[in-house]
């Protein structure tokens, strides 16, 4: 029998395959490698941010600062490349250092001051967005030959699709995330924390180190997503990427990760991202549907997956404890 923990992942995978098949039967052109390549390129920044979000949610927390950190990274890069002669690679390193430290600081506050992640990362969201405003209110274009060079790297598939560097970076991030979550002690600690903080403490999980690490990863990956976003748009704008954290959370949930923490897969998030990208692509192909249907369909999908998870939790509890009138899990 299929283990109930991996069932959400299988359902996500099946949803993606069925949805893609439906799309392809309506518009055969959607099978083209161009569409696949664009699916990867267009969602690269969201996917990278969602990997960090997966770790945060697996540990039972939440990170609302993701979108703001992406905007801050973009503006910071644009301003620093405009005003100084620094090489973009050095600027990238600087951005990653700042955002990782920012995430670690939020993790530290959450752990040492025992404050809810929701409120701490909310303050972080204001702070990062505000810092982006302070740097520049206007959209700052990025014109650097190194950027042009990076944007021109692609592998052209025989049928015309261009697989760009950013899409590959997203796939690499997902692979690294999978290894980190399932093959390292840190990953096991994250799962343990999500299963129950008290239990994890008694098991000897270093809570402080793990919490700081989780939010540092989320911050750092948001910074990386910001770099990818700046490559994608060739500009830094402080109002960009509003609400990306919601998209990332939605992708994680559609990917089969329990928002209470402790159960889920990084790979599921990848298919969550692809499903969301597919909905958008379908709407573009259709041409008559308005863009707000994206939000409604994603909301409906979220609801379906939450119900599915709930049903699974019920099923496992009932099997384990068949006594009548047993208390519901809450």
């Amino acid at each position: 029998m299929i283990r109930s923990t991996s069932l959400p992942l299988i359902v996500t995978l099946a949803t993606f395959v069925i949805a893609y098949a439906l799309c392809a039967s309506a518009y055969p052109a959607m099978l083209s490698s161009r569409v696949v390549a664009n699916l990867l390129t267009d969602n690269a920044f969201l996917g990278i941010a969602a990997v960090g979000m997966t770790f945060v949610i697996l540990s039972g927390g939440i990170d609302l600062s993701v979108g703001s950190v992406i905007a801050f990274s973009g503006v910071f890069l644009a301003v620093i490349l405009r005003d100084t002669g620094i090489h973009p690679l050095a600027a990238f390193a600087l951005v990653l250092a700042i955002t990782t430290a920012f995430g670690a600081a939020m993790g530290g506050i959450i752990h040492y001051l025992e404050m809810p992640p929701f409120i701490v990362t909310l303050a972080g969201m204001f702070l990062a967005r505000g810092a982006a405003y302070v740097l520049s209110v206007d959209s700052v274009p990025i014109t650097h030959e190194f950027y042009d060079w990076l944007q021109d790297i692609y592998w052209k598939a025989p049928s015309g699709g261009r697989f760009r560097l950013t899409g590959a970076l997203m796939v690499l991030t997902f692979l690294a995330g999978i290894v980190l979550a399932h093959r390292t002690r840190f990953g096991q600690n994250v799962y343990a924390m999500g299963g129950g903080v008290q239990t994890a403490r008694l098991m000897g999980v270093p809570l402080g180190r793990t919490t700081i690490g989780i939010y540092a990863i989320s911050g750092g990956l948001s910074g990386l997503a910001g770099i990818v976003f700046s490559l994608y748009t060739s500009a830094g704008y402080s109002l960009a990427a509003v609400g990306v954290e919601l998209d990332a959370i939605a992708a994680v949930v559609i990917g089969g990760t329990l928002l209470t923490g402790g159960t889920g897969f990084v790979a599921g998030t990848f298919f969550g991202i692809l499903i969301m990208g597919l909905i958008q692509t379908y709407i573009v192909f259709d041409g008559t549907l308005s863009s707000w249907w994206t939000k409604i369909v994603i909301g409906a999908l979220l609801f379906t997956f939450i119900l599915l998870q709930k049903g699974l939790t019920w099923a496992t509890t009932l099997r384990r404890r068949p006594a009548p009138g047993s208390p519901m899990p809450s």
Partner: protein
Amino acid sequence: MAASHSPLRRLAPQLVILAAVLALNLAVFPDFFRIEFQNGRLFGGVVDVLNRGAPTAILAIGMTLVIATKGIDLSVGAVMAIAGACAAKIVADGHGWGTALAGALAAGAACGIWNGVLVAWLRIQPIVATLVLMVAGRGIAQLVTEGTILTFLNEGLIHLGAGTILGIPTPVVIWIALGAGVTWAVRKTALGLLIEAIGINAAASRLAGINARVLLTCVYLVSGLCAALAGVIVAADIKGADANNAGLWMELDAILAVVIGGNSLLGGRFSITASLLGALIIQSVNSAILLSGMPPEFNLVIKAVLILAILVIQSPRIGHWLYILRASGGDPAPRRAKTVKETAR
């Protein structure tokens, strides 16, 4: 809290912070407390804070009840957009403002019941359950307005957001009346006690015979109604329904107001008055930043730093450290220790 001690002691931290922020306002704008009566309406810095803070304050009333049951309602911003869109649509179709208000409230109630059913009957975690409507809600609002910003010129509806009652701006009257009404309802009956019981221990409250399902659904219903009212006020204020921007991030302001009000996100004891003070503190901070003439770019940074400072002061860990400090300082006055313990909870 209020029942056994003086309510003033419960509200003291919020009152002190509010006084400090208002003093800051006075420092940057000496005429802040002057109130004038012109064209049949009160004008002045304080009136402005009360008026502009109305949507947050109204949301905070519903949010306080939801948070007291150990829940959270992320959808209020989206519900505001839906309610504003419905009101504008009904007025644009030629109906009166009463119908529009009723329609908007009905939409809010439907959203609230949806959230309540997900949380109370399907037992989905509140943050997840309300996330669904938060994501889909703006899409629904855009469906109602058909992607445009619906403007209207109905005098009655506009009066709700920009008019006055006896010289006082209507939104101020609405939020004060609503706050007083809900406070009365939960404190003069056992309702407040039952809500706190659910928040502190859901299983125990069920064993004690509380009908948690119906009560939870009602709490989310109230939150939906509050959000709808706030949405109508915001739409009436700008004489139009903007599905994309109406109520954007308002859920975060409302939650902040509740947290600044000293209500625990883990449920249990709550004070609506303290949440309303929290909403006023947020609005006063906004007004202080505006009046000081600082570049608007700094707004968010200053707000974030202030929030962090307020939260750190209220952090249970800091309270615990203070308690230990005082206990080891050789002055273990029992009354004092008790107060600190209270904040430490």
